[in-house]
């Protein structure tokens, strides 16, 4: 099936969940994620998806229901955003510690206060260390594809971890875009039935989500950390399988016009599309700029980034959230740490853009890149950043 179909990205994500034949959807509506689960509830009500749709009273319950259903061996899905993700927070850590392959779409939205329904990444950055595999997608096609990819990775016997697919609220969730869907036959070939390693079943009692005393907690956390790091080869393998199936090839970091670039821009999520316009314009004007699009946030693809930044001496990192009072902002913190041991290391510039739905224009990105081009390339200072477009 290679026909391009125009549909809202949220609907495409819900269609991917239908194609994945999820067993349980437990979700609570929250802008800008609502259309996803609204469409899923229609699919279930109309008999197009044979699943249990659990109308919970909060996101805390949505994630708790998914923990229970995944533990019982059901393919489990939910979606949320912003305050909803914050309300799930404590259960996120339980889902990953219990190694339950739940798939969740987060339609990224600013956290209150002040109340904002618009996009930024403050919601997921506040849950950054929840132990889930985390993707950021750039457009509707990537959102559809990664919903399928997420189930395949999460349930792989070598992974067994929950997965978040981050897509920018409104900018993607409410956009009508062309999508190339995947046929049911192809999905069935790509995504075998979920075979849990352990399953809650009365015939074979066992204990999940136990209490741990100080003499074992450290070992359990180390095992969890190693499992997340060890998921990387499977993540790559699944991208390759998906590429062979559909012709759409993905990687942890996608380079864009980085050949000979003196300044490399690092983006996550939908801003990569805007930034590619800026990079094109500047390249046409003869300016040596390129871009890296970070698609995999956890496990963090440090080695890929080091390789792809290559000899560029200046790196511009875009953050879509502020880490209040921190040494630097979330993405910049990772990148700065990554390059600390490198000699020579690039100068790292950090810009915070698009908070609470503030529009990010190609001109804004051009200005940021232009400033970096004109600056010298001596490393440091670390932690300074520009809040793009802020009025004095």
């Amino acid at each position, binding site marked *: 099936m290679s026909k391009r179909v125009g549909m809202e990205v949220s609907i495409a994500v819900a269609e991917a969940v239908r194609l994945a034949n999820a067993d349980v959807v437990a979700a609570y509506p929250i802008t800008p994620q609502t259309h996803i689960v609204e469409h899923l509830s229609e699919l279930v009500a109309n008999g197009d998806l044979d699943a249990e749709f659990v109308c919970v009273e909060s996101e805390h319950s949505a994630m708790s229901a998914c923990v229970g259903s995944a533990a019982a061996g059901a393919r489990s899905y939910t979606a949320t955003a912003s305050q909803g993700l914050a309300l799930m927070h404590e259960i996120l850590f339980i889902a990953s*510690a*219990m*190694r*339950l392959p739940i798939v969740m779409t987060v339609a990224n939205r600013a956290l209150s206060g002040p109340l904002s329904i618009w996009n930024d990444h403050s919601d997921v950055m506040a849950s950054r260390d929840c132990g889930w595999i985390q993707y950021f997608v750039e457009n509707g096609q990537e959102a559809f594809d990664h919903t399928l990819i997420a189930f395949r990775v999460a349930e792989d016997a070598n992974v*067994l971890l929950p997965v978040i697919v981050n897509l920018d609220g409104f900018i993607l969730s409410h956009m009508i875009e062309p999508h190339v869907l995947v046929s049911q036959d192809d999905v069935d070939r790509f995504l075998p039935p979920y075979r849990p*390693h*352990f399953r809650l079943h009365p015939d074979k*009692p*066992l*204990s*999940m989500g*136990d*209490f*741990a*005393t100080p*003499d*074992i907690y*450290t*070992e*359990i956390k*180390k*095992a969890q950390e*190693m*499992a997340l790091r060890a998921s990387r080869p499977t993540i790559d393998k699944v991208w390759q399988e998906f590429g062979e199936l559909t012709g759409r090839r993905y990687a942890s970091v996608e380079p864009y016009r980085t050949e000979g670039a003196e300044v490399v821009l690092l983006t996550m999520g939908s801003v990569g599309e805007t930034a590619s316009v800026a990079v094109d314009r500047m390249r046409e004007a003869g300016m040596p700029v390129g871009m890296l699009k970070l698609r995999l946030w956890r496990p963090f693809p440090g080695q890929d980034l080091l390789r792809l930044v290559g000899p560029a001496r200046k790196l511009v990192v875009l953050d879509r959230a502020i880490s209040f009072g921190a040494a630097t902002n979330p993405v910049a913190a990772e990148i700065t740490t990554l390059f600390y041991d490198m000699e020579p290391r690039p100068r790292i510039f950090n810009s915070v853009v698009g908070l609470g739905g503030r529009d990010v224009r190609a001109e804004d990105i051009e200005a940021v890149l232009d400033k970096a081009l004109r600056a010298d390339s001596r490393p440091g200072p670390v932690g300074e950043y520009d809040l793009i477009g802020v009025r004095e």
Partner: protein
Amino acid sequence: MSTKQKPLGWKDIPIGAVAEEYGSASHYETGGWRSQRPVFDPENCVKCGLCYVYCPDASIVMTPEGYPSIRLEYCKGCGVCAQECYMSTFGLSCFKMVDEEEFR
């Protein structure tokens, strides 16, 4: 996780730290926490079973004769049995909380 097993290394942890042996909390003896011990006197007991129902650690088992028997290896000495005892209404609780020091 049992405290009686040889200490596990991180590579020994089952996926999701699942305990395949169910009910393994019984290996975890909490009686050592106790500072007061409930001492049972059958004199007043009407075999109501309230102590068995209310014990938060399920440390009370009922004998075939219908009397409570306390498993001291789990009893934390909270005193709920003494408090909830039906006969305590009349100031005649079957359980008297006694300082552990008395038993040393």
